[in-house]
Each structure stands twice: as C-alpha cells, then as structure tokens.
C-alpha cells in the first residue's frame, strides 16, 4: 500500500517536472520569436543604411540586383563627406551645441534636483511635480512661442539659439531623473555630512554627485540625445549652411531639388550616429542603472 502511494507520488512529481519543462520551453520559444521580430525591425534599417553608404552613385542608380547587397564596396561617400567643408562645419556645430547643452542642462538639473529633493523648502513637492509636467508639453507646440522669443533676442539663424532652446527640453526630464536618484540616497548621509562639517554645496559636490554618478550619467546621455538628434528646432530656426547642425545640414545639403544623393546621405547618417553609439556603448550600464534607480528597495 505504502509502496503504491510512493510510486504515485513519484509519478506526480515527474509529471509536474515535465509540465514545468514544457512551460519553460514554450516561454523560451516565445522569447526567441519576439526577439527575432525585434532584431528584424530594429537592425534592418541600419543594415540597409550601411549597404547603401558603401555603394557608388552609379551602382545605386543602376538598380540592378538586390538592394541589400553591395557589388563594388567603396568608401568614396565617406571620404567625400569627411573632406567636405560644409559637413565638417555641421559636425563641429553639432558638437559645440551638444557639449554646451549637456553642460548647461546638467548644471541646472543637478542644482534643481538637489534643492528640490533635499532642501525641503515650502512648495518643493509641488515644484517637483511641476518640473515633470513641463516635460509633458510637446516640443512641437513650444517652438512657435519660442520662435518669437528667439527672434526678439536676435538669434534666428544662429546656432547659439539652440544652446538656449535645448535645455528647455532636456532640463525637466534630467531634473526628474536626478530628483529620483537623489531621493534614493539615505537621508542619514546628508546628516552625517552636516555633522562632519559640510555645507550644502560641499555636501552636493563631495557626497551627492559622486554617489549619484549613475543617475548623472543617465541624465547626461538623455541631454546628449535630445541635443544631438533634434530636428524640428534647427529646421525652424537655422537656414544658412554655416549655422546648421548635422540633422538639418545633411538633408538640406545632400538633397538638391529632387536629386537625392542616397549614398552620401546614408554615409552621413552613419557618421552622425558614431558619437551616440560610442557614448552608449561605454555608458549603457550606468544609463540603465540610473533610469531604474529607486524602482526597487535596495
């Protein structure tokens, strides 16, 4: 009797194990299929961009064979752009605008987040929520009134206007990230610093910024992305080649009327993508850690 009970228990356990194994197998298959679709959707466009950038204008216009393959790979499009003064100017403008945008945005965000999360003044909670609500206003709505302001400042068709404009897009979200990060730092740390003799600025500089570095990197990457990839604002505010940044420079220079220089456009896109790729590759771990900080109790 007891032997039969034992056998039945063993059988039930084996059945459960098989069932779990089957469930896991289906879950894995589901994951692979979803990942496969994801890879196709997200990697095919860059692949097509790369293939086209390696083709000569003649090969592109010949339209012979598969558009996904290159018959005579060439770097002539890249070489053309690297030696093209306008492209160099766009690149330089983008770098200047982005560095300054990131610097301005981060200084404002870190100071704002520190005071909102740690100084505990009257209305700081409401102000924190207000900062986030600002981020929800679509940039496409803001650029019309901002056009008036920039016009009054005499900065239309001057890339320095972007150094003023981009922080208005980057600061709210960066501040929000930093508020979250600073709030996750135990309050005893500031109290220990206060007792050790630190003032608020010393506390920020010597304790909060080093401890919140993953959050600062996440916010920096966000500010960089906003500045480097923005299209609408430079399109609206800049119209001469010497002031343009990469995003508008590429299309306005390499599309002449109905002539699209696809090879050069694609090569320019790849060259323009290099800085974000390099930065993301080095800082991705910090970025993810920064965005998810405070999501779980440590």
């Amino acid at each position, binding site marked *: 009797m007891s032997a039969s009970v034992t056998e039945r228990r063993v059988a039930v356990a084996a059945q459960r194990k098989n069932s779990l194994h089957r469930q896991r197998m289906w879950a894995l298959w589901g994951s692979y299929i979803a990942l496969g679709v994801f890879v196709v959707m997200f990697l095919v466009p860059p692949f097509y961009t790369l293939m086209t950038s390696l083709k000569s204008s003649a090969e592109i216009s010949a339209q012979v064979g598969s558009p996904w393959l290159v018959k005579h790979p060439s770097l002539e499009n890249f070489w053309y752009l690297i030696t093209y003064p306008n492209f160099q100017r766009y690149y330089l403008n983008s770098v200047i605008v982005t560095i300054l945008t990131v610097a301005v945005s981060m200084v404002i965000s870190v100071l704002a987040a520190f005071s909102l999360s740690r100084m505990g003044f009257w209305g700081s909670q409401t102000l924190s929520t207000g900062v986030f609500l600002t981020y929800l206003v679509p940039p496409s709505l803001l650029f019309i009134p901002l056009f008036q302001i920039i016009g009054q400042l005499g900065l239309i068709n001057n890339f320095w206007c972007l150094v003023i404009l981009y922080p208005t897009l980057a600061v709210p979200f960066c501040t929000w990230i930093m508020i979250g990060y600073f709030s996750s730092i135990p309050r005893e740390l500031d109290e220990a610093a206060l007792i050790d003799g630190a003032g608020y600025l010393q506390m920020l500089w*010597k304790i909060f910024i080093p401890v919140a570095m993953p959050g600062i990197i996440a916010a920096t990457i966000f500010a960089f992305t906003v500045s480097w990839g923005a299209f609408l604002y430079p399109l609206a505010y800049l119209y001469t080649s010497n002031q343009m940044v990469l995003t508008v420079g590429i299309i306005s220079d390499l599309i002449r009327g109905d002539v699209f220089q696809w090879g050069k456009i694609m090569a320019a896109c790849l060259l323009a993508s290099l800085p974000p790729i390099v930065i993301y590759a080095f800082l991705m771990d910090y970025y993810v850690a920064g965005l998810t900080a405070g999501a779980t109790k440590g």
Partner: protein
Amino acid sequence: MAEVSVRKVVKEYEGGVQAVKGIDLDIADHEFVVLVGPSGCGKSTTLRMIAGLEEITSGEIWIGGDVVNDVPPRDRDIAMVFQNYALYPHMSVFDNMAFGLKLRKFPKDEIKRRVDDAARILDIVPLLDRKPRALSGGQRQRVAMGRAIVRNPKVFLFDEPLSNLDAKLRVQMRTEIKKVHQTIPTTTVYVTHDQIEAMTLADRVVVMNGGVIEQVGTPQELYHNPASRFVAGFIGSPAMNFLPCRIQDGANGGLAVRVTDSIIVPIPPARVDRYGAYKGKEMVLGIRPEHLFEHRDHGKPGWTRVDLPVDVVEPMGMETMVHFFVEGTPVCARIDPATHAAPGEMLPLTADLNQMHLMLPDTGRVV
C-alpha cells in the same frame, strides 16, 4: 569633552503633534547616558535635537556651557553614529574617517595620525583601503565609530547603532562600544529601544515614554527601584509580572497582599510601614520572574510559597521559563532547569517578596 543639558525642551511637529513634551536632563562630563523607550517615545527626536538635526520648538540645549539652539550641527563639536552607518559609499574607509578632518582643514599628517590611532583602537587597520560595500555590518559600524572618534568631539551621539546587526554581533559590538568609552571617556548620549543594551552600557539610563522622561537613574536603580509601572515593565527581561491585588491585614499585626482567594501572601515586616496607608485599597503587585522561582525548603525572611498551575514551559539551558495564568493574568517564573515542571501540573514556587513592588492602578506610580 563637555556636559550636556536639556532644559524644558519641546518638539512639536506641524499639526500640533508633540514628540517631546518639555523634558529636562543634565548629562555630566564623561558620562555615558542611554535614552531608552519604545518606538515613538521621543528618544531619537531628543538625540537629533542635541545634534542640531531637528529644530527645537521651545526650551534650551546646552553643550559645554553654551546654548546651542541656533548653532548648526557642524559647529556643535559633536559626532554621531547612525543606525544604518551612513558611510559615504564612494570613499574608502580611510577617507570616510578623514572626511570631517579634511573639511576642517587639518594638516595631512595630523589626519593620518588620528585615523591610524582610531583604526588601531577599533581594530580596523587592515580595512582602511576598502570601500564600505566590501565590509560586513560589524565592520561598517566600527568604521562609523571611527569616523566619530577621529574628530575628538565634545559629545558622541549614537542613534540605535546596533539595531541593524544580528544578535551575536550586537553583543560583541556592545562590548566594543563600552571598551571604546573606557578608553576615550567622551560624554556620550546613546539611543536604543533595547533595554539590555541600555542596562549594560549606561552610567545612567533615561527611560522615556510618550515624549516625557519616566525616570532617570543608574541601571541598578531602575531595576530595583522603578518609579512607575512603565519603567518596571520596560526594564528587565522577561518583563515584570503585574497582578491586580488588595492590601489587607495580615498575621501578627502585619499586612498581606491578596491576589486571589487562594493566594494571600504576607508583606515583609520591613515594608509594612511603607504600605500601611494603602490598606484596603486595590493595587497592582509587581514581581519579576527572577523573584519567582522553584520552591526551596530553606526559606529566608520575606520568601513565601505559592502554588500555580503550569501553562507553558520554556527550557533555555541555564534556566527555564515557566508561564502560568492567575485569574486570566499571565505570570512568568524563572526556575532552575533541574526542577520538574510540566503543563497542567501544579508547581510549588517561592516568591521573594523583599523584591516586590506595589503600584497605584490608575497612575501606575510605584509606592
């Protein structure tokens, strides 16, 4: 080093909630004072007010002869050890300990000398290059203490520093803290909710409850002469037994405590005068478990026999806790482990009434 005085200090939060209700406390130079009490009694708030981390609603705090109500924490010359250590995670142990000295612009060689000295006292010399994340809980707490020691402040403040440690480590660190205070006898205010910690560490214990000080005294004073039912119940583990009773006439012109019809025990002659005024009144009898033990034939004056039905037996190795119910009131006795006790059986016990306490049922005041 300095004395600390708290004069009529009140802390009221928004909404009128009073965390501290006008307490007075004088702490002598070199003294180790422990504030103890249940959660929400105001002990941590008091400590934080001494540290300058909480503003005072009214009253005065004096450190070293100066009123420090409006002095920021950094200028009070105090050092604090927190429950969760509050070590700077990006700094090495050395830098954590040196941080306060660097901010105060101490010369480098002086900083090194002080950190090395503190590290030697706390036995953390091999850890100086490590980051806090590479340390165990006990090591982190040592570093936190080291950070306080290097500053050589007037006052050490400890806010439940052992609460995050496991039981074994807590006992070890308790001894360490006591040893450090013996080596560096800085005035210390220590907050804990653990009465054993309070009793073992303190020169004087301050028992707080509901924002007021219930009693201040040496551990022995609090244990033997509690001022109130709260203190009597809070100090001692397991807690004191409390039994409703009535004082009545006893044999030979003495007094007796009537707990139930079958439990009427004589009050020791030495206490008859003290309790005479309460004859015929309802009172609360307080007796600690250690004063209720297995019956011994060779009795002493003030010892009396009571027989109680055993409810639960808890053998602890060096002693056995036996639990009873006396007319619905739980009672605990601490008996010799060799004594036989089994649930449901009557157990003859001896009550040492020389150690009894009588309290007023309404105010809880010990008479």
